[in-house]
């Protein structure tokens, strides 16, 4: 034991290796490996009968996605839903986080923090099924109480996804606001800036990176979802459902389709970098 610690003390590189090898193996093999497999599979072909994958290189899956209109429609629909979810979540997250970080007493803050994260303790499926009983056009709770309901479709999908991902928007925004010193707000007030001006000129610029972080979560999680849309989306399908429906019958096509949300997120991240929002994230 002593010999080992002496060895590790003398050889800092060995120490580093011992420390990092496990996470590195995980990252490279399990994680990047899976992504690489996905990328490679997207170029493969399908045996029309057995559904087995034929390992021949070709671009037919991408040609199909480009030429068959249904995939375009699904992508546009998914991006619109993800955008709406992100806007709704950020619009809710900013006032809640502001209250949490700047106004609430420590006691209230503790209670509210628990309340915000509590939905994360329950299973995703349970929450989605629960929402189904709310929006159900047959005898759903919303229909019983208000007489109308968003029913099963894109509207409900957006609402449910916004509900599911709200904690992921609140947490980074809250963390960002906590770092904003109260003195800045006071200084703005002293200089004659009223609440809205202070919010626009002081809070938002400081909050930028946190908003980007929050939006990355809500946007990407919405892009990949297929269960909420199955339970409350009625007949509609999103990118996630196309991947889910196809990964059995046509693995290569599903792999190709699953690259679309990744590509969109990469573009989004590069755009975010351009604005400088990632600099001090």
């Amino acid at each position, binding site marked *: 034991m002593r010999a080992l610690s002496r060895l590790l003390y003398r050889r800092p590189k060995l120490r580093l290796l011992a420390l990092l090898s496990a996470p590195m193996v995980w990252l490279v093999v399990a994680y990047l490996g899976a992504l690489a497999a996905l990328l490679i599979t997207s170029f493969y072909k399908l045996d029309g009968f057995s*559904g087995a994958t034929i390992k021949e290189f070709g671009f037919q899956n991408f040609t199909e996605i480009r030429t068959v209109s249904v995939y375009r429609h699904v992508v546009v629909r998914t991006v619109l839903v993800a955008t709406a979810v992100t806007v709704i979540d950020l619009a809710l997250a900013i006032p809640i986080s502001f209250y949490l970080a700047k106004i609430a007493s420590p006691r209230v803050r503790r209670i509210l923090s628990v309340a915000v994260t509590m939905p994360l303790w329950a299973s995703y499926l349970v929450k989605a099924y629960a929402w189904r009983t709310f929006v159900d056009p047959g005898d759903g709770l919303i229909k019983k109480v208000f007489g109308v309901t968003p029913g099963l479709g894109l509207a409900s999908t957006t609402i449910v996804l916004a509900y599911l991902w709200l904690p992921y928007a609140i947490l980074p925004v809250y963390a960002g606001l906590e770092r904003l010193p109260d003195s800045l707000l006071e200084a703005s007030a002293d200089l004659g800036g009223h609440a809205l001006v202070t919010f626009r000129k002081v809070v938002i610029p400081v909050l930028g990176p946190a908003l980007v972080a929050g939006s*990355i979560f809500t946007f990407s999680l919405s892009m990949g*979802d297929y269960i909420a849309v199955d339970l409350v989306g009625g007949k509609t*399908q999103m990118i996630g459902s196309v991947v889910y429906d196809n990964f059995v019958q046509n693995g290569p096509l599903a792999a190709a389709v699953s690259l679309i949300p990744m590509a969109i997120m990469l573009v989004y991240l590069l755009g975010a970098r351009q604005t400088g929002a*990632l600099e001090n994230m």
Partner: protein
Amino acid sequence: MKKTTIKTIGIAAVLAFTLNACGGSSSAPSSEAPSSEVPSTEAAADAPADAPAEGNEAAAGVSAPDLPMATEVGTGEGQVNVVAWPGYTEKDWVDPFTTASGCKVNVKVGNTSDEMVALMQTGEYDLVSASGDASLRLIASGEVAPVNTALLSNYADVYDSLKNKAWNSVGDKSYGVPHGRGANLLMYRTDKFTTPPDSWSVVWAADSTAKGSVTAYDAPIYIADAAVYLMSTNPELGIKNPYALDKTQFAAAVELLKGQKGLVSEYWSDYLKQQAAFKSGTMTAGTSWQVVANAAKAEGTPVDVVLPKEGSTGWSDTWMVSSKSKNPNCAYMWMNYIISPEGNALATEYFGEAPSNQKACALTKDKNHCTTFHAGDEEYFSKIWYWTTPTKECLDGRGPICVEFAEWNKAWTELKG
């Protein structure tokens, strides 16, 4: 600047991880459907318009990889991992099996044949209750091994009409044991239909009274249901087998399904979702299984099922053993048990289908079970189109002009829009 790039990549990686984690974390929940007495299914009419029996016999020219089969059944491994249809592995008959054999049965419920094929491809399961649209794919891709029926003492009592069929054998090799068979039925809310429907037109016709609350099975194989309907409503298309559709016939079926979309409230593949939707009234008519109707009735939902006059699609299921099975002895014991008179009676009566073992008829709680579900009634089953994988080489012998399953799959994604 460089630091930012690394950060960007890092964030992208975290993101992709989140996406993956989310996608993989959940699967359809399985739950035990409540047990209930089996209600009767009435055939609305005696014969569908056009029902050639030879369709169910057609061989698809499948070639199977040469895999070894078991030569003896040794002592059990203590467990067996099973992919099964909902309602196929319930406590009532699994527990006696475990007690007798010492094999614990770990069940993964499959909601569609396609899901079952995917589960079997993982190699983690020993057995699967495959329908005809999965069995041939499993055989052709070498996922399942031939079954040595000489090792199964109860095999002799299985109806001969179910042995060595196109969907459970290749050449003279059998690839499994028949579980039972039945028809996909039209389920409807009895409070919404004053006169019970006797035709599939309630789910297809543009002026259907169930408009807006129709449901359909969310799998490409459902295109065959459209074809079955077209066989009686549009005979000039000349469809002889709903799984053997040439381009024109296929286009007509897809067109019918596109029209149906306007009537549909939701598609279903998760039977629990269908049960809930019928209860709430979001769905009032659509294709279903007897077992779903039983569960819905047990919950107090006013539903009933009927075999419409056009005939229907259906299934003849086969227990198959994985070629990579780690528990082959328990797998063989299960296969022998599920076709035993006791096991077969319990399982098929619960699900609401015809048993495969003729001696099971004497052991059902409802003595009319075998009559109700037409066990051994070959004339009845000649009107049911068992799920089969569509192949390029037409199943009705017209040559290589048919639309193969991969195209069915694509069409299904497209028509959902």
